């Protein structure tokens, strides 16, 4: 995918690039989780989504609880440092508010699958799933035999989301994006996707980082949206800390269908991207 970054309001970026039935990846490995972008998609009402993520957490619990998700592709569905995802459980165990199809992998498999997507390959091979049960329940885990050694390796298809969303610390004025700290799978998510929307803390004249820092050139990104605090309640290395109370609170909110609905209405469905800046007050570095 070669594209050209446009600076857009988040509302407009989502309106232009996201449609019902698409596969979306909101990536972030505990760090830099694109909450603001996900909330905007929730507000605009897109449904029948396939949501992809290694570590779906609160934000996917929210999508699932709202009934927007047809299928989830993932490797670890938990509330980090807290416990289980209660809306996700309700969907899988009780089909509420609707049945949720799942495609489950290991982290190694998902990481390899994104990597293959970024590399333009149809699949990835790795030494994985040895003795593990997932390969018996997932049709997307196959094997390939090494033509040199005869070793049987696991194979998974490349991930190629319609749209990848990430949150990053900075973009420069041309739209080049810098990610620092725990960089996770974000570069691969962007490079594997057909379109990529990046929310950033700030736009600067010059990225001014290390020659080998993780930078996404502007022509790999479809839209850049400035949303200060857009990763809240997760954190942005060098900008603000994780809001741990919010993660603990989520466990209570998500425990009850009605409490969840009320909370979502107030904090997501009738809120705006601008609200995130307030949420990081007191957490800033």
């Amino acid at each position, binding site marked *: 995918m070669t594209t050209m970054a446009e600076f857009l309001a988040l509302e407009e970026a989502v309106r232009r690039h996201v449609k019902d039935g698409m596969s979306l990846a909101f990536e972030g490995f505990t760090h830099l989780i694109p909450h603001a972008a996900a909330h905007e998609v929730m507000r605009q009402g897109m449904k029948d989504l396939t949501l992809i993520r290694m570590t779906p957490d609160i934000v996917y619990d929210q999508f699932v609880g709202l009934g927007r998700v047809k299928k989830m592709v993932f490797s670890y569905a938990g509330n980090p440092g807290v416990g289980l995802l209660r809306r996700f459980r309700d969907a899988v165990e009780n089909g509420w508010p609707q049945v949720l199809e799942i495609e489950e992998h290991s982290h190694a498999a998902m990481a390899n699958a994104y990597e293959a997507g970024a590399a333009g390959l149809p699949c990835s091979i790795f030494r994985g799933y040895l003795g593990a049960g997932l390969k018996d329940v997932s049709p997307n885990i196959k094997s390939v035999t090494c033509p040199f050694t005869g070793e049987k390796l696991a194979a998974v298809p490349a991930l190629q989301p319609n749209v990848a969303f990430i949150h990053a610390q900075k973009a420069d004025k041309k739209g080049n994006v810098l990610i620092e700290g725990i960089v996770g*799978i974000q570069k691969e998510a962007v490079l594997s996707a057909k379109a990529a929307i990046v929310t950033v803390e700030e736009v600067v004249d010059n990225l001014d980082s290390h020659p080998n820092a993780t930078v996404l050139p502007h022509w790999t990104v479809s839209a850049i949206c400035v949303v200060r605090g857009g990763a809240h309640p997760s954190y942005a290395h060098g900008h603000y800390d994780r809001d741990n109370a919010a993660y603990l609170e989520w466990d209570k909110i998500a425990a009850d269908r009605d409490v969840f609905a009320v909370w979502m209405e107030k904090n997501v469905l009738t809120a705006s991207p601008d609200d995130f800046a307030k949420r990081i007050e007191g957490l800033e570095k």
Partner: protein
Amino acid sequence: MSNAFTPDEMMTIAASRALTNEDICFVGIGAPSAACNIARLTHAPDITLIYESGTIGTEPGVLPLSIGDGELCETALTTVSVPEMFRYWLQGGRVTIGFLGAAQMDMFGNINTTVIGDYAAPKTRLPGGGGAPEIASSSAQVYMTMKQSLRGMVDQIDFFTSFGHGEGGDHRQRLGIKTKGPTLLITDLAIWTPDSKTKEFVVRSLHPGVTCKEVQETCGWSVRYDSELEETPPPTDLELKTLRDLKTRTRAATRS
């Protein structure tokens, strides 16, 4: 400081003792993370701790709440991408100890963190495997730590999230797995290692004050004991102080 200690503290400290300065340890969150950091803060200052978020050689001042806390990156030697972590560092065979917790395990160290009940229609949907399936097969050895309970230590796990010794014996070799698999289990009551032939976990040492009866009452399979059963040395003052200080620092940091 009181000399009394909780079973939880004994578990963490006993687990920490198994680690050495030479280990490259792939750290699961929760009990494994505490044990690994106590080792680093006491007898194994040169141990290398790796978290799956990409942080290599990390030295957190407080216990991370998640596998990807900023603290892990800020104190790390270097932080790599997640695909690199799984490809070059774990699959590359560089990890000496994979340290895992479990929701459910059996006597052969097979682990379930996926579902309670049937996979397609589970009674309880758990988080899933995350890094565990390949940590279990790619680390040179696997250490495990969990609190004993009839729900946790079961005769039959509901799902093979990650493979320990399978049905026991040479099951790993039969599947072409070249690493050793689970070689140590530390619970809040005892230290277990596998029988060299059957690979069934056998109690080698009881923590101070623990009886065989308590071990059996909290374990879903019929427990075997070493003929020369030992008693785990109690926590030293240094170990206990280090652990409690770490927990205090962690609580303070989390609250702030």
